[in-house]
């Protein structure tokens, strides 16, 4: 339900961004460049770029899954336009706090609204950087405003996506997971 909401918001954002762009979008097919769109290297480059530039932190892809904490934070940004789907960022609460602290220079004791805001921004930048790696997507795919979920014992399920990338990353002080779900390509 949440994913549908952010997806619809992204589609609405895209629709509002100008008729000329819509016309361009209709003349482009991403199906022909599926391999480029689903290239795992684009996601790794996006994660490294966002963390290096915004936090001054080196992060690296890890073959091991992210460290599970009792409570976690998940941000979701929907894609709309030529590609429909979502970008998800997930980390444990203590990692989310460290990320927000690195972004702002502030100290946090719990996952408050500023920490959620920071994780939403990270997800937004990851989604933007990822789609920016494919020129047709950069121009013809809109992003929704981030939605942030916190809590314990929750799962996100998407039925039969076109493709899905799930990558884990580590940095000095924590680990996180980024998921790209594509459930429709024009």
């Amino acid at each position, binding site marked *: 339900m949440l994913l549908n909401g952010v997806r619809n918001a992204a589609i609405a954002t895209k629709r509002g*961004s100008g008729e000329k762009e819509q016309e361009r979008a209709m003349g482009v097919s991403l199906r022909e460049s599926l391999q480029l769109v689903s290239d795992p290297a684009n996601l790794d480059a996006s994660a490294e770029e966002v963390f290096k530039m915004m936090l001054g932190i080196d992060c690296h892809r890890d073959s091991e899954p992210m460290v599970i904490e009792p409570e976690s934070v998940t941000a979701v940004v929907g894609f709309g336009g030529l590609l429909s789907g979502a970008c998800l960022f997930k980390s444990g609460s203590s990692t989310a706090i460290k990320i927000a602290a690195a972004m702002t*220079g502030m100290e946090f004791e719990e996952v408050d609204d500023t920490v959620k805001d*920071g994780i939403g921004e990270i997800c937004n*930048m990851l989604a*933007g950087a990822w789609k920016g790696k494919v020129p047709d997507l*950069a*121009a*013809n795919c809109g992003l929704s405003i981030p939605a942030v979920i916190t809590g314990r014992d929750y799962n996100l399920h998407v039925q039969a996506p076109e493709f899905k990338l799930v990558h884990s990353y580590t940095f000095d002080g924590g680990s996180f997971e980024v998921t790209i779900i594509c459930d429709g390509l024009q």
Partner: protein
Amino acid sequence: MSEIRTLIVDDSTVMRKIVERSLRQAGLDPLIVYEAGSGTEGLEMPSMDGLEFLRQLRAQNLAPGVPVVMITTESSEEHVKQAILAGAQGYIRKPFTAEQVKERVLPLINAA
């Protein structure tokens, strides 16, 4: 340089902090504003996006001659064109570094 005031308008606390830090590193004294509509007297339209804020700012002539730099996740030529048409003098794509903020903002201040 510190006599020059820069205004940060963003609904994200984290983005305001990051931009504030970048501007301070560039020797500027930023005035922080909570969200679009609360930073400019006479423009009472909260919760609009940056592009709409800029269009209203220019349409109502509320900050004549004041250069505006947009910071956004969108990076396509079409988005840059929309920002320029709305009245922006500069454009920074997220993610960005403090150095990039300095490189975009200082020349505009020096030229103003």
